[in-house]
């Protein structure tokens, strides 16, 4: 079956622009997670969704970051007024249910802010 997909695979944007990153989880997976991976920080948790709800947004690096999920499926991570330190690979993962289940990762979106 299809795995987790993400788009775009690469995004180059100018500092100050807004970007939207999309994640399509595995069909039937109720839990969805966003992480980012950068050279200096390793793998950093951003936010998770149970269904369409994100109970804990404290992992988002700043208020320029927001995320939503609709229909219990597709999720969008939006970064407003991008900064160079936002450059990273943004990874999405999904799992069957929340907690204690294997997370399957998508291919990631490589974001470069110039």
């Amino acid at each position: 079956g299809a795995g987790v997909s993400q788009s775009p695979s690469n995004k180059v944007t100018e500092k100050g622009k807004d970007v939207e990153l999309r994640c399509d989880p595995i069909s039937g997976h109720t839990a969805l997670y966003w992480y980012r991976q950068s050279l200096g920080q390793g793998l950093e948790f951003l936010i998770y969704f149970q269904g369409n709800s994100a109970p804990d947004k404290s992992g988002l690096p700043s208020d320029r970051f927001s995320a939503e999920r609709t229909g219990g499926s597709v999720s969008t991570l939006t970064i407003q007024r991008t900064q160079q330190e936002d450059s990273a690979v943004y990874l999405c993962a999904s799992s069957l249910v929340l907690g204690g289940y294997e997370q399957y990762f998508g291919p990631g979106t490589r974001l470069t802010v110039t």
Partner: protein
Amino acid sequence: ELKVEQNPLFLSMQEGKNYTIYCNYSTTSDRLYWYRQDPGKSLESLFVLLSNGAVKQEGRLMASLDTKARLSTLHITAAVHDLSATYFCAVDPDRGSTLGRLYFGRGTQLTVWP
């Protein structure tokens, strides 16, 4: 804040040799995952360890979990070049608002040479 420490961070080994990667974590958890990442690729699940004493093997890799020692190991037997990649351990502490979130080690970059 939960800490996950992997060592070594860099490992260069000759084909045919054995070695062990260690993953220590700072909280109680009986759920630990090992992932492999090839350059420019996403994370591929290798092992899911869900109880104390769990041992899983796949090919030349064997993973184990000791929840009392808060330690997991990834043992490589008779290494081959195809095992060259970065290996991550990740812990699921299953607590409160971080339910389902994974805490990752910094990764072990393995290079196997002839």
